[in-house]
């Protein structure tokens, strides 16, 4: 029980617990505000994290991650606009419930479902991660390189509607990653004798620019549009005991489904929540009531999308590969605060892992508490005009970019990537693949270099390990699945 006690005493201490609360509360607000997603929230949090202990920073990040996934449901229910992509399925029944005057109950059910999903997925994370980490200790550079290749195939699944544009965005990210000093030889590639380019583009301003600043530019398109708001009075947060008993039979399987989906890289909350919604409707005695305000239609996707949080942390923590966009940004965040995810983290820094596990679990209870207590405040959050919100965030983006290296050049980098990101997103190039390229590119190259050093330059070493071959195999499967899904959705579109 000692790790649990260690974790609890760390997280619950007065100098750490407030950061978890701020993380979760901030996550809920960020998730609830349309236009701001979990990724943007994590990026905006980064400049603050840099000044905290790694374990504290990690629990704050986890709070933000879980809170944002839950927060997305609030705007989905109240104004039919999912705050995050993973809350898209919640709109289907959440909004009709709000229109019937049952917004309070819908948010209450979403809160209970999210908490349950989160708790189940955290338990799975706690039990699965150490086992997987132990297995991953056997990995050498060859296996890690194969793993990074697999991580990069996630690009295909986050490419959106055009695979070509997604891949271009990903390779553009890889190209940007190759600017600066080559770790093996020390040669400054593509630096054009500009001193600032010698070390390459700093990761934090690139992330801030691509995700947050470009989003601010995108929001200019909403200037002059009427802000959607929910003006009815919210009452009755809790479902009846009878409703609760029938909902729990939906929530628990959806939570496990979400966790399972979360563990598979290349998936994420949006897929899990739609799958859970469809399955719940299929097994329902009254499938026709879905889409018209069925509480189970809110419970299932919310349990599933928060279920993915703990699941997605498994490959991230044990293998160092992100499962989706948010975890890719999490990986970038972890590297910036000096935590290198992977099996060694479990061996060398067990106190960080203990704190993370306990922090993740407590975050779920905080979601329950803050979610139920804040029901009446949520409609007010949605009333913040964009003319206040985004200028303030822009100022924070600049300050965040500056603060890491105390450099005005970094502010310019954020602005430059904001402009690039804006043009790319406006023309259908998703930002997520580029970020994956920027983060995973250098890691993949480093592992390849190490593998080749150990094999004295023999490239065949890459395909000699059965574990590496396994990862190449599932990389091919992952890309094929994405292609198939894209084709199907195009056929449906026709």
């Amino acid at each position: 029980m000692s790790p649990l006690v260690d974790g609890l005493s760390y997280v619950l201490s007065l100098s750490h617990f407030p950061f978890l609360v701020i993380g979760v509360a901030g996550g809920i607000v960020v998730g609830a505000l349309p236009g701001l997603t979990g990724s943007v929230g994590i990026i905006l949090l980064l400049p603050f994290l840099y000044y905290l202990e790694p374990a504290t920073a990690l629990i704050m990040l986890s709070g933000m991650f879980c809170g944002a996934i839950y927060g997305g449901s609030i705007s989905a229910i109240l104004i039919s606009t999912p705050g995050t992509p993973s809350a898209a399925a919640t709109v289907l029944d959440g909004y009709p419930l709000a229109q019937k005057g049952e917004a309070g109950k819908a948010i209450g059910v979403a809160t209970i479902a999210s908490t349950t999903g989160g708790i189940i997925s955290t338990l799975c994370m706690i039990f699965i991660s150490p086992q997987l980490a132990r297995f991953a200790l056997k990995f050498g550079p060859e296996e890690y390189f194969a793993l990074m290749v697999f991580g990069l195939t996630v690009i295909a699944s986050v490419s959106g509607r055009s695979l070509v544009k997604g891949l271009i965005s990903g390779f553009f990210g890889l190209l940007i990653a190759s600017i600066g000093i080559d770790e093996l030889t020390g040669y400054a590639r593509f630096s054009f004798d500009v001193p600032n380019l010698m070390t390459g583009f700093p990761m934090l301003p690139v992330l801030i620019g691509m995700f947050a600043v470009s989003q601010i530019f995108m929001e200019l398109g909403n200037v002059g549009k009427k802000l959607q708001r929910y003006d009815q009075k919210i009452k009755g947060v809790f479902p009846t005991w009878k409703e609760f008993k029938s909902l729990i039979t939906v929530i628990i399987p959806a939570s496990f489904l979400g966790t399972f989906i979360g563990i598979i890289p290349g998936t994420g909350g949006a897929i899990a929540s739609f799958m859970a919604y469809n399955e719940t409707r299929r097994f329902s005695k009254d499938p026709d009531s879905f889409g018209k305000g069925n509480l189970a239609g809110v419970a299932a996707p919310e349990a599933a999308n928060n279920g993915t949080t703990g699941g997605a942390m498994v490959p991230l923590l044990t293998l160092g590969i992100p499962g989706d966009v948010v975890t890719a940004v999490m990986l970038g965040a972890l590297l910036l605060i000096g935590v290198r995810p992977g099996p060694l983290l479990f061996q060398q820094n067990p106190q960080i892992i203990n704190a993370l596990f306990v922090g993740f679990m407590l975050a779920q209870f905080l979601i329950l508490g803050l979610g139920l207590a804040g029901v009446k405040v949520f409609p007010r959050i949605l009333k913040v005009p964009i003319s206040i919100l985004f200028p303030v965030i822009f100022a924070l983006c600049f300050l965040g970019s500056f603060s890491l290296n105390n450099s005005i050049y970094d502010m310019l980098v954020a602005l430059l990537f904001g402009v690039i990101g804006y043009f790319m997103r406006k023309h259908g190039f998703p930002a997520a693949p580029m970020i994956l390229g920027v983060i995973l590119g250098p890691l993949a190259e480093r592992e390849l270099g190490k593998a080749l050093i150990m094999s004295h330059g023999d490239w065949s070493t890459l395909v000699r390990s059965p574990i590496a071959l396994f990862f190449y195999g599932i990389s091919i499967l992952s890309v094929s699945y994405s292609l198939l899904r894209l084709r199907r959705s195009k056929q449906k579109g026709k």
Partner: protein
Amino acid sequence: MIASEIVFGAVFMLLSIFFFAMTFTFPEITIALSPTVFPRFVTVCLFLLSSLLLIQGIRKQRKQQPAERREKIERVYLLRFILLAAAGFLYTRLIRYTGYVVATPLFIAAAMLVFAEKKWYRIILISVGTTAVLYLVFRMVFRVPLPRFGLW
């Protein structure tokens, strides 16, 4: 109107050619993996993908009927984008000379105006208030040496 795929295809194509050519200027130093390998692989893939995008764009262009123009909306949007980006750029120049405390409220006020904020009291309150809060947190708590004017 030229399809955006053609423009982006051409831009990425030129970019990949330029960076590929640049790899030939790298010195011949190899420790297991030459510094040219990774960039060359990436630029070749980028070139192939951008050619594909260019072809897609040309096909789309042929099929496309003269598009209905929502030019007025687009023009206002573009103007706002240019103004906001310019405000951001000027901010990074100004902060060097006037320091954080002077440049930031001006930038926030400018951004609020671009976002069509009309109430002047809000502009003053938010721009000054946000600057004060951020200054307190980053300068006083985190001890970040923010750029400053001689007197601050």
